[in-house]
């Protein structure tokens, strides 16, 4: 025993030669493992999916994976501009399916990043009429994207402090009882869009320079009310802790999950109007698995996929497929009520019909830079 121990000892002594040998072996191992990973990722049974958080979660994609013996590889982003950055910096064909906000579809088409789609491949007849020929998805009569889910952005407020009646105008954001308590979603586009609606701009993103100067003044005048500029996790925390009692530029996708947990928060679309966000699916140019990608989009826009997308754990969203609504009412009636997807009650489509909702879009008469500059100055006031 002792002799064996003594024999073993020298083998653990580190000499320079051993160190070099070990280093070479480690390097070879690292190289081999990364090569293995590359092989694994390039296998035929995967589909890459560029999407907002949660869209690639098992609760959404698992039935498709099992039915087609395929693994969905999600690459998540937050914000349309982050999506544009990712897709522009990747090799062509890196992503098979791209989920994007509606306003970036034209940009992607112009940059040759997405392919034209065949409308006959998708069940548009099952969609609410408002979503069958959606602006921004059809360009010059050609289809480039299919809408997956949507929601409205307006005033999010703590119902213990601000009633729905009070929140029926963006004016409430300047209420003295909200001084230092108005949170700001740190994305200029929806946050400034709602304030543009408050200024009376029916097309909040298509405004002339005079209206833009006025918008700047409106934005700056909100500064004394501001609790802070928040990303998504901080919005949840601030609404839970009561550090922020109201926001503009966000909506149900935040408040549904919070109210389900018992927090007194809701979304009200003010009389000046709300903004609609829309997430849509496109086929990536140079994607190597176009057929599988098409099947995946068909799955997500069919009733089962729609219900799964609507009720995913990262955030809930409204869905455009009427048969998806029917299925949700059958199997998840409570959730259908919370999402206002009931056919027998006032629902999200009625709000759409009221004409209060404007599609979110990129600035028309000014550049992205001009708008984000105002936002940066606002943060630094």
């Amino acid at each position, binding site marked *: 025993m002792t002799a064996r121990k003594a024999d073993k000892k020298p083998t653990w002594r580190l000499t320079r030669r051993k160190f070099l040998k070990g280093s070479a072996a480690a390097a070879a191992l690292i190289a081999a493992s990364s090569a293995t990973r590359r092989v694994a990722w390039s296998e035929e049974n995967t589909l890459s999916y560029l999407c907002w958080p949660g869209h690639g979660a098992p609760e959404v994609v698992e039935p498709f994976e099992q039915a087609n013996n395929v693994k969905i590889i999600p690459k998540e982003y937050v914000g349309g*501009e982050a999506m544009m950055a990712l897709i522009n910096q990747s090799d062509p064909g890196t992503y098979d399916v791209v989920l994007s906000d509606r306003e970036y579809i034209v940009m992607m088409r112009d*940059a040759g990043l997405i392919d034209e789609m065949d409308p006959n491949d998708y069940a548009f007849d099952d969609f609410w009429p408002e979503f069958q020929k959606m602006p921004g998805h059809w360009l010059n009569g050609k289809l480039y994207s299919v809408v997956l889910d949507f929601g409205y952005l307006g005033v999010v407020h703590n119902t213990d402090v601000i009633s729905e009646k009070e929140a029926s105008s963006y004016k409430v954001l300047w209420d003295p009882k909200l001084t230092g308590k108005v949170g700001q979603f*740190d994305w200029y586009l929806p946050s400034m869009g709602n304030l543009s609606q408050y200024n009376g701009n029916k097309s909040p993103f298509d405004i002339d320079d005079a209206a833009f100067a006025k918008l700047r003044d409106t934005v700056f005048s909100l500064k004394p009310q501001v609790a802070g500029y928040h990303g998504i996790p901080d919005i949840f925390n601030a609404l839970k*802790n009561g550090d922020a009692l109201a926001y503009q530029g966000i909506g149900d996708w935040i408040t549904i999950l919070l109210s389900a947990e018992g927090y007194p928060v809701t979304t009200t679309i003010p009389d000046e109007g709300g903004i609609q966000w829309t997430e849509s699916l496109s086929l990536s140019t140079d994607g190597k698995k176009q057929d599988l990608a098409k099947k995946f989009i068909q799955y997500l826009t069919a009733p089962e996929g729609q219900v799964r997308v609507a009720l995913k754990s990262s955030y809930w969203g409204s869905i455009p497929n009427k048969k998806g609504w029917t299925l949700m009412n059958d199997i998840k009636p409570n959730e259908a009520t919370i999402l206002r997807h009931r056919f027998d009650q006032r629902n999200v489509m009625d709000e759409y019909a009221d004409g209060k909702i404007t599609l979110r879009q990129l600035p028309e008469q000014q550049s992205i*830079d001009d708008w*984000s500059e105002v*936002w940066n100055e606002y*943060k630094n006031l």
Partner: protein
Amino acid sequence: MADKALTQPTAGTAARNVDGYALFWGLPLALWQLVFFVAPLVFLVVMTFWTVKNFRLTPDFDTVNWVNMFSKGYVIDTYFRTLWYGALGAVVCSVLAFPASYALAFKASPVVQRIGLFMLITPFFTSYLVRIYSWQAVVSDNGVLNNLLGVFGLGPFNILGTLLGTMVGYITLTLPLVILLQFFSLSGVDRNYIEAAQNLGCGRLRTVFLVIIPLAKTGIILAGTFAFILCFGDLVSPTSLGSSKPPTLSILIVDTVKQGNNWPRAAVVALMMVLTLIVVAFTAIFFAYRVKKEKT
């Protein structure tokens, strides 16, 4: 044979062996620095002259990003604000840390010292982000602290979204490290000097300021410098406890990338930060070690 050479070196071979040995062990660090610091830094400089067209980075040689960033009042304001925040964080942390490190170095028994050191290391077991989110629950308007103060009829005090909130985060980030560095420095102070000072009638407080602090100056300055570096570049505290109100340079970098994928302009800000940190670090090292040289 090799073992024999190592255990019984002649003067000449020893010198040659030491050089080779040092080179062997020093080379990875040099390579690391070259690959992960110098090369990215050069790339960062090059990128500041690139342009962005439709979210796409385009190699270019255009000074537009420099002109653009330096012509904006808020960029300059943010720079000096971040400098101020970093300096304040470093000073506050150093001042708060000193009594603890002093007590640990001079007053604590060896057992208490070991327990103290262990407790100073344990915060690093938990993610900094998690600790900051925990602070949110403590210092928010309806949080633990305000509820506690409410019992005594005080508050609520608004801490989130203020400079105080950011400082709470900075202290969470740097205090344990600053105490450790100060402690190691204070532990190295020769006790004979302290005894001599006291024998010569120097009071306790005067001994601290005239004997102990000057002798431990190197460690104290380096600890403060570390605190500055960490605070200056921190994104989490000014975002989650300061609520980006107002922003710091790290937040400006994130915003610049987020809004239009403008990496070149973000690179200008990053370079401003790197250059500032290099100047601050070298200045601090100069002052920290100049004192030492004078003493020897």
